[in-house]
């Protein structure tokens, strides 16, 4: 009995020692081995934020896809594997077979497969295949605002436009998950390790998709009608600086960016400066009135259409005799403008143009914005004062021009243009909201009012821009016909930009619009080429925005009459 007792005691002692050894001395090591078997950290990428228009219509969003790769050296039966993969993923079988027989260590089979198909392939159990969760970017409106929104390339790398400029906001951060699995490999507990927000933020633009489409269709029609090289338009709310449309033609579809030449990717409204031509006369008039040296009735001799300054000959499209400042703007006399500019002097002209924002970026928040070119008046040649007055020797962007025109609509206050309305956190709370911002007073409200009257006269039947007026509305605007320097740097045998810049209604402006059509054929006058597109944009936008006509007695006289000049 005692022997049996000793034997059992010894056995119990061995068990106790072994248990102590495993549970205490080896505890850390064995626990780690166990944890490795049932706990697994997995990383996924946070979803990229979406881009919306002001009415929360989706302009850009990401969807889940699965990237599928293969290790050809680990695939047991490449022929059979290629057949199965091609059938399930609906891909070219011979191409897949070539990849699997390539002998490479790794090949991509497909970078963008829907998760449903990827799961079916995963269940086929082909060894050597790897599956990676990924996203692709989709632009459901195709060409709408293509250049403005930009696009992302492989792995959602931002390349242009809003996607590029606001990439830090939009891109998702890595998410780390802790998965706890049972013996069968099924996950029964999943915890997110990093608590910070990992999905990207959503961006709400000030753009209205309907007005954007209206603008794109209008300039497209003008470009096709006049066989022009390209066109652009911008629509802005002058009182708040909100940009409702930035249109570029030819159009661009970011879903298939590789099919378009790179020059089409560019948002030329913001990036490309051009000589503004006679639209500059509006700002010359503002400078002249602000100087106190001129009134709207100040008269100059327009030399019957030919005037020599120093060694330059300046021409008017139509010969005029004596014109007032009011009429110089209405009939767009280059000679009249040159004389008024010399009357007020280069400093006054330069100071006013600078205050209107020319020669500086607007800081709208878009990539590649140009500041245009406005040389300091101290660097001007004597002829520059005259030529800058009618828009040569200065370059501006369409964005700068619409911002400056809007200052006239705002009683002389320059507003900062903006493209972003607000930025949202992934949970929908507002991270940032942009409010209207007035930059400075450019001219007095009395001067702005006088210039508005001149601009309204431009759109009268005997002005240069009657074709810009939609039925039932009043418009303040200015035509422009600007020569484009040729490759030799001269204006000889050159193309033209046809422009119209303005706002409507005259008394209580709701929209400011600039239209630029580049290299039209047949006619190159702003009043003929750009003005109808301007009218169409206003007419359809006002209908959409329920802006009532402010001139209901307008029965629609033939607006195609009037001077055609820039």
């Amino acid at each position, binding site marked *: 009995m005692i022997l049996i007792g000793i034997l059992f005691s010894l056995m119990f002692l061995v068990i106790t020692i072994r248990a102590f050894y495993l549970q205490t001395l080896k505890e850390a090591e064995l626990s780690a081995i166990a944890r490795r078997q049932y706990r697994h950290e997995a990383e996924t990428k946070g979803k990229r934020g979406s881009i919306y228009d002001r009415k929360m219509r989706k302009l850009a969003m990401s969807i889940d896809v699965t990237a599928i790769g293969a290790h050809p050296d680990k695939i047991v039966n490449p022929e059979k594997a290629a057949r199965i993969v091609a059938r399930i993923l609906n891909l070219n079988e011979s191409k897949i077979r070539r990849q699997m027989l390539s002998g490479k260590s790794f090949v991509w089979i497909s970078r963008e497969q829907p*998760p449903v198909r990827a799961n079916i392939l995963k269940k086929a159990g082909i060894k050597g295949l790897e599956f990676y969760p990924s996203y692709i970017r989709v632009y*459901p409106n195709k060409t709408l605002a293509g250049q403005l929104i930009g696009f992302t390339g492989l792995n959602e790398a931002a390349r242009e436009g809003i996607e590029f400029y606001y990439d830090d906001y939009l891109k998702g951060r890595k998410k780390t998950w802790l998965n706890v699995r049972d013996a069968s490999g*099924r996950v029964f507990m999943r915890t997110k390790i990093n608590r910070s927000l990992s999905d990207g933020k959503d961006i709400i633009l000030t753009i209205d998709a309907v007005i954007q489409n209206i603008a794109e269709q209008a300039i497209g029609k003008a470009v096709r009608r006049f066989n022009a090289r390209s066109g652009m338009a911008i629509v802005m709310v002058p009182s708040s600086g909100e940009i409702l449309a930035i249109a570029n033609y030819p159009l661009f579809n970011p879903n298939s960016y590789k099919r378009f030449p790179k020059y089409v990717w560019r948002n030329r409204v913001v990036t490309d400066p051009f000589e503004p031509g006679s639209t500059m006369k509006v700002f010359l008039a503002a400078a002249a009135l602000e100087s106190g040296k001129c009134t709207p009735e100040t008269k100059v001799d327009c030399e019957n259409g030919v005037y020599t300054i120093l060694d330059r000959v300046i021409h008017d499209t139509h010969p005029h005799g004596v014109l007032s400042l009011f009429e110089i703007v209405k009939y767009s006399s280059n000679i009249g403008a040159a004389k008024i500019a010399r009357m007020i002097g280069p400093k006054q002209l330069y100071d006013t143009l600078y205050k209107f924002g020319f020669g500086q970026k607007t800081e709208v928040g878009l990539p590649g914005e140009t500041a245009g070119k406005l040389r300091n008046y101290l660097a001007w040649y004597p002829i520059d004062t005259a030529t800058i007055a009618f828009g040569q020797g200065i370059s501006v962007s369409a964005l700068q021009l619409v911002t400056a025109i809007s200052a006239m609509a705002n009683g002389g206050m320059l507003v900062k243009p903006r493209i972003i309305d607000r930025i949202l956190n992934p949970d929908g709370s507002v991270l940032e909201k942009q409010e209207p911002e007035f930059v400075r007073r450019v001219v007095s409200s009395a001067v702005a009012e006088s210039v508005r009257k001149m601009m309204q006269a431009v759109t009268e039947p005997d002005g240069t821009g009657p074709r810009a007026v939609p039925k*039932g509305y009043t418009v303040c605007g200015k035509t422009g016909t600007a020569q484009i320097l040729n490759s030799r740097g001269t204006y000889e045998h050159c193309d033209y930009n046809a422009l119209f810049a303005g706002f409507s209604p005259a008394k209580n402006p709701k929209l400011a619009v600039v239209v630029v059509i580049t290299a039209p054929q047949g006619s190159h006058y702003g009043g003929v080429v750009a003005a109808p597109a301007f009218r169409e944009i206003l*007419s359809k936008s006002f209908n959409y925005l329920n802006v009532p*006509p402010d001139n209901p007695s307008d*029965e629609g006289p033939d607006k195609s009459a009037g001077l055609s000049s820039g």
Partner: protein
Amino acid sequence: MGHGGLQKRMLSGRQFSIFLLIAVCFLIVFFLDTWAGVKSIRYGYEIVSAEDKARKLTDIHKKLTIEYSRLISPVRLAPKAKMEFGLVTPGPSQIIVVP
């Protein structure tokens, strides 16, 4: 010594009842803990399964959102309105402003 000593070492009836009560409480707690653990793991499976289902439904929702955005896109609707339904922008004489 004999029976008297043995009686002293045995538990009294009251002590035995207390011991029994504690043992029963311990057993109850033990079973409750085990039951809770099993339930917890079962719910864990259900939660993960629901999360996976939610992910699939979210994916379908995203695809439907894209399809919806495409269908209501003005790029698609505007020419359709004009060509198929003959809709045009009304002129000023067709607009009645209700004060």
